[in-house]
């Protein structure tokens, strides 16, 4: 069953330890959610996840994550394009800044964004007279999720832009294509799988995001309450089965997205391989 080519020692101890630790920390605790939801039974699960407040929270989470992922794709594409295709002073510094949302703890991002977009905040004070309310609205949730999602898009697209084949681009222009045609017909199709991956990563992260959102969302039931917050609300009422039911629905959604990402990446890899051969 196990092939061990070569002379290297330590397969069994390393393998057994990895599997044991993985099971204890990740697999067994995670299975607790599914078992808890299952022991409550289907009627109870269905009753929980179809109650109006929970459905509203799913809609808020899903809608804001979707809007933020789309915005992240557009903004992230512009940033990645400038970083990969143009030269300007301070470029590598700007490139390093893109990782800030990965490194900054979510709660810190949450209070900072809230203070910026609150009606008396640095940005909020200019947006409020225009009739744009950001803090404590779904728009605020979306802004927080753009902050969280942007690096996923930039870091997905950058390597593809770096590898883009200049010869194809030159061939297209020398055959008479305009700059816009080259972009639309040659460059953009090559970036599309990476953009989709970035979109899916940002979207998946947005669905589960908690720390950066709870402060700016205002948490009004039926309006700006996100799904993770309802899990906490259920726990505070000692409704463990209800919390587990909401969690299962979220886990299924995010695993589906991760599966989709692998599928996109696998397909684009196969596409590149057939093109090369």
């Amino acid at each position, binding site marked *: 069953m196990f092939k061990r080519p070569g002379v290297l020692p330590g397969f069994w101890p390393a393998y057994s330890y990895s599997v044991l630790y993985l099971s204890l920390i990740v697999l067994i605790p995670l299975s607790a959610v599914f078992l808890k939801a299952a022991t409550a039974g289907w009627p109870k699960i269905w009753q929980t996840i179809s109650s109006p407040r929970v459905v509203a929270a799913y809609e808020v989470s899903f809608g804001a994550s979707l809007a933020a992922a789309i915005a992240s794709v557009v903004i992230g594409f*512009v940033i990645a394009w400038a970083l990969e295709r143009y030269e300007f002073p301070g470029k590598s510094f700007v490139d390093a800044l893109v990782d800030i949302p990965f490194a900054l703890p979510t709660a810190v991002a949450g209070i900072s964004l809230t203070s910026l977009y609150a009606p008396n905040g640095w940005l909020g004070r200019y947006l409020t007279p225009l009739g744009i309310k950001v803090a404590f609205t779904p728009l605020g949730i979306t802004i927080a999720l753009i902050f969280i999602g942007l690096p996923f898009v930039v870091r997905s697209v950058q390597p593809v832009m770096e590898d883009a084949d200049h010869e194809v681009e030159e061939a297209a222009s020398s055959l008479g294509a305009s700059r816009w045609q080259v972009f639309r017909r040659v460059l953009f199709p090559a970036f599309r799988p990476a953009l989709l991956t970035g979109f899916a990563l940002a979207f998946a992260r947005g669905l589960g995001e908690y720390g950066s959102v709870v402060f700016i969302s205002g948490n009004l039931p039926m309006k700006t309450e996100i799904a993770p917050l309802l899990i906490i609300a259920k726990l505070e009422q000692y409704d463990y089965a209800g919390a587990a039911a909401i*969690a299962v629905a979220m886990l299924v959604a995010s695993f589906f997205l991760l599966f989709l990402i692998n599928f996109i990446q696998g397909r684009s890899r196969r596409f590149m391989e057939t093109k090369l051969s």
Partner: protein
Amino acid sequence: MSATSRRRILRTEPTWLRRGLIGLALLLTFLFIVLPLAAVFIQAFDKGWAVWQAAVTEENARSAILLSLLVTGITVPLNVVFGLAAAWTIARFQFKGRNVLLTLIDIPFGVSPVVSGLIFVLVFGAQGWLGPWLGDHDIQIIFAVPGIVLATVFVTFPFVARELIPLMQSQGSDEEEAAIVLGATAWQMFRRVTLPNIKWGLLYGVVLCTARSLGEFGAVSVVSGHIRGLTNTIPLHVEILYNEYNYTAAFAVASLLSVVAVVTLLLKKVLEWKTREARV
């Protein structure tokens, strides 16, 4: 002359568009990414150095810092040992289920922080699987330090392994095989060959794991119970201060975490450069 200049024009956008796009990219980076970080520091020092210092040295802040350091001190070594074992297994051997193992390691990245906390409440909480037994033996895990450690270990689980696996795969096993053939013991091989080769990647994994352990909010929030001076980590303390409208103090404590984030980014640059050097 005309041929080369025409070709250059065709390969890139007109100057106005190029400058416009660079400007737009800089503006968007500033607005969406830099401003939230800058706002933390500016608001932290709003009322001067003395107020900042008072906020970060006050008793509850001090115990939150100590607890976060304790949790990180337990979490990081645990995940380093796992990362080394998993990378050794996956990058050095072919076996059935190798890809499954690789996929399972990534699971915690796909799980919402709140769900990451919830799973430990369902196992160790009063109504959880082990709750009654733990209650009989007077062991508290949820709403206590062990629960915070478990949730943090779960959330930071993949970091070290994720750094080491691709690095060790790209380096190959020739040097290690040579060491064994020449009579080195397993420990000698690990210490003299493997460790020097992977040290920068390992260090980067440790940096990421440390930063996330110190800053984790959602998962820890679910299992901690928010008991002041006992189960509050730095991010939870920030939340409490903020919800009490004590904004300057909240941002002062948050600025500590932001410094950690900036240092993480700096180390990332340095270590990326070192790993690339080691790979060549």
